[in-house]
């Protein structure tokens, strides 16, 4: 039975990776889009980002060096990712439950890293009673319940908010509730596993070490196996839901909201303009579907309302 559980974890990880890659590749394969930036743009330099200004505030901006600040952009992203600043500013009540939920998830990611490190150290021959492993175990013992607990409380709060707020309930589908219940179950099982059989996450490190070297030892606890399978199922499921925003948010911010790169004789942009203007749209409205005009360039250069020059030829 435990072999099946191991197999499921492999399948789950593969599905997760494929799901993420598929979505990112699909996005990146889209053609160039029009600029659609929204201010404040975080990387604007010269103190402009603070009040929402941008480089277009300069006369002859195309002749001037762009002042940008990657540090500021990083700081804004950091605040947005780790503190969900937009929610804090615009939807404080939801932030009270969303923030612990997400903070718990970030701690879990950290915990997974730590567990992977511990598993690697074990495989490298480090003794389980060494000082470093004791530190790993000690940290895990403290962080695990906080992480699982925060996410559990957050998911519970989000569920109650969605059920209790008629405005949110109107826009909630079965999937919203399923997702939150799934997280409640996963975090509940993880907390129970920690409390009852794996306080230091030693079992988790052993499982991962076995996972890496294909040594499928049966863990001592069926509760632990349930936790592993549930966790991997959740991981595999995320890229196929709106929760994909955890990685797609990067593109939504960097590639759309803050994508303000102007085309000042940029060969790469001009090449892409050449490509998209040769696309063949199939819109049917009479002002677009012009016989003989196939590409965007043909259609855009055609004036469906043009009059003979007579009216516009009058002397000045």
């Amino acid at each position, binding site marked *: 039975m435990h072999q099946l559980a191991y197999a499921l974890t492999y399948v789950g990880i593969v599905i997760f990776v494929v799901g993420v890659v598929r*979505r990112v590749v699909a996005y990146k394969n*889209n*053609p*160039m*889009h*029009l*600029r*659609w930036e*929204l201010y*404040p743009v975080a990387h*604007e330099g010269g103190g402009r980002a603070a*009040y*929402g*200004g*941008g480089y*277009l*505030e300069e*006369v*002859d901006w195309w002749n001037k060096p762009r002042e940008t600040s990657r540090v500021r952009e990083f700081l804004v992203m950091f605040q*947005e990712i780790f503190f969900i*600043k937009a929610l804090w500013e615009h*939807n404080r009540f939801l932030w009270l439950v*969303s923030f612990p939920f997400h903070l718990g998830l970030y701690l879990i990611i950290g915990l997974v890293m730590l567990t992977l490190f511990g598993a690697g150290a074990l495989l490298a021959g480090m003794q389980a009673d060494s000082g470093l492993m004791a530190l790993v175990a000690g940290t895990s013992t403290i962080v695990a319940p906080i992480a699982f607990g925060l996410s559990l409380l957050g998911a519970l709060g989000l569920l109650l908010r969605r059920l209790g707020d008629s*405005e949110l309930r109107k*826009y*909630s*589908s*079965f999937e919203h509730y399923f997702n939150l219940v799934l997280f409640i179950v996963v975090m509940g099982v993880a907390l129970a596993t920690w409390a009852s059989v794996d306080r230091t996450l030693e079992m988790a490190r052993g499982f991962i070490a076995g996972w890496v070297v294909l040594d499928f030892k049966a863990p001592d606890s069926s509760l632990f196996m349930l936790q592993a399978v549930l966790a991997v199922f959740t991981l595999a499921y995320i890229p196929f*839901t709106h929760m*994909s*925003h955890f990685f*797609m*948010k990067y593109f939504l911010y960097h590639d*759309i*909201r803050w994508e303000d790169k*102007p*085309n000042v004789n940029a060969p790469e*942009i*001009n090449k*892409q303009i050449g490509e*998209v*203007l040769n*696309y063949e749209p*199939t*819109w*049917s*409205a009479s*002002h677009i579907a012009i016989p003989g005009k196939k590409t965007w*360039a043909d*259609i*855009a250069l*055609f*004036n469906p*309302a043009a*009059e003979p020059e007579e*009216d*516009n030829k*009058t*002397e*000045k």
Partner: protein
Amino acid sequence: MNDPKQSDTAKDHKQVSIGDIGKNSEQLTTVKADDLMPLPGDVDFGDKDFEPLPDSTKEKYACILDDVNVLQIPMPKSRAEEEALVNKFLDGMRKLFDKQSNWTFLSMLETTMENCAKCNTCSDACHLFQASGHNEMYRPLFRSEIFRRIYKKYVKKEPFARWRSGDVELNWRTVARLGELAYRCNVCRRCAQTCPIGVDNALISREIRKIFSQEMGITVPELHERGSMLQLKVGSSTGMTKKAVIDAVEFIDEDFSEETGYKFKTPWDVKGADILLIHNAGEILSWPDNIAAFSIIFQAAGLSWTLSSDLAGYDNINYGVFYDDVQTARTALLHAQAAKNLGVKKIVFGECGHAHKALTVIADRILPPGLQIPRESCFPLLRDIVLSGKIKFDPERNNFPVTMHDPCNVTRLMGIIKPQRDIVHKLCPQFREMNPHGAHNYCCGGGSGFAVMSRSNITQWRCMVAGRKKFEQILNAFEDCRGPDVPKYVAAPCSNCKGQIRDLIAYYELREKEKLTYAGLVELIVNAMVDVKPGFIKWEDAM
């Protein structure tokens, strides 16, 4: 509203749900005067319920959403016509997700479809949702979620879409109401600004408008036939031909030279000039003082500049940005061609927000290499002129309370915020900000094309609902000098916003009640010029 029965009724008409969108009812919802967001102070501004639309309009067009009819969707007369409406809409929606047909916005649209968490954070950012007293129809998520559910179920055909994303009834009523709903949004994108994920539910409004225009051939006449098509035909949505526009500007030159005591001449078609200035031609007809002010300032600053009389070269409007990508591209190409024909070094836009964005930002990835003439806003240039010392000013001439409306296209969508402030801080001793302002401003209520619509009861809707938040902001900005004794000035440096604020002032009789007037930014600059006779701003004539 103290009667519980009445309260329940009011609540019902506001609380529509997605499940109602295809309902067989004459009208889905309504906005009553009693529902509206209260205005500051205890002045009764006399808001009234909407009168029912005339039967002739209802017979002709599908007026089944609320009290207003913007998009003229022909009323289907048979089952076959009903089905055709639905099928055509679905065809258009499929094309929105096809890179050949919609490369322009595909990335934004797909990410908005897939990543929205339905957290409702965007709702309170919407001035329409707030102003309407939280009528569900105006919630940004209401419109976008109907669209999203149709997409997932009928276009993407996502397995278990009904459970995953929620169900929606799709029939001709759904399509007709969704089309109208796309015109209950100013596409100001304030909702998108607040989204923690980066989703843009305002974009959905524009994409729905595109389906109707680009696929179904159903458009708003003020934007299409009398807007972008008229501009492509004669050069301007005002209907002014080359000869008419030159005559009009010559008349403005003569008239204002005499009135201001400052002799100036607006140059036309100067080959090799540094700057091609493109105005919104609506200014020439409605606000000639704005045209004169630009000419006076540019001449006084000694700039090398010109206007163009080429097709569309004298009207910077690009109504395509409100509803149609192809019309956007066609108009942008004409503007750039006009600049190329004159061999100017750059294009500068007059006070017109959407024109700023259309040619500077949107067209940045439409114009082919030969037409990529540099383009910039008038505001940084005006700021540099005002601060340069080339022109002498007397700020005391502007010593009256002034506030400034930030056009969304210029501020939130282009990040041009400080230059206007540098000017008013130097020239207007009693300047005060609206709250919020800059990138976080509220739309005037005329955005995305509404400012040019006054058909039927659209003006009432624009003033009572769409412009209500702006109205509140204006009243709050002048909190310390309310009433008819102190003259007050709203600077609205955008032609469409200015038109909307003009209508707000007229609708609520604010000239009489508040001694409020409005105009652009350049009028304030010229009003403070020492070389110009005092009194460029005319408090009595501004309507």
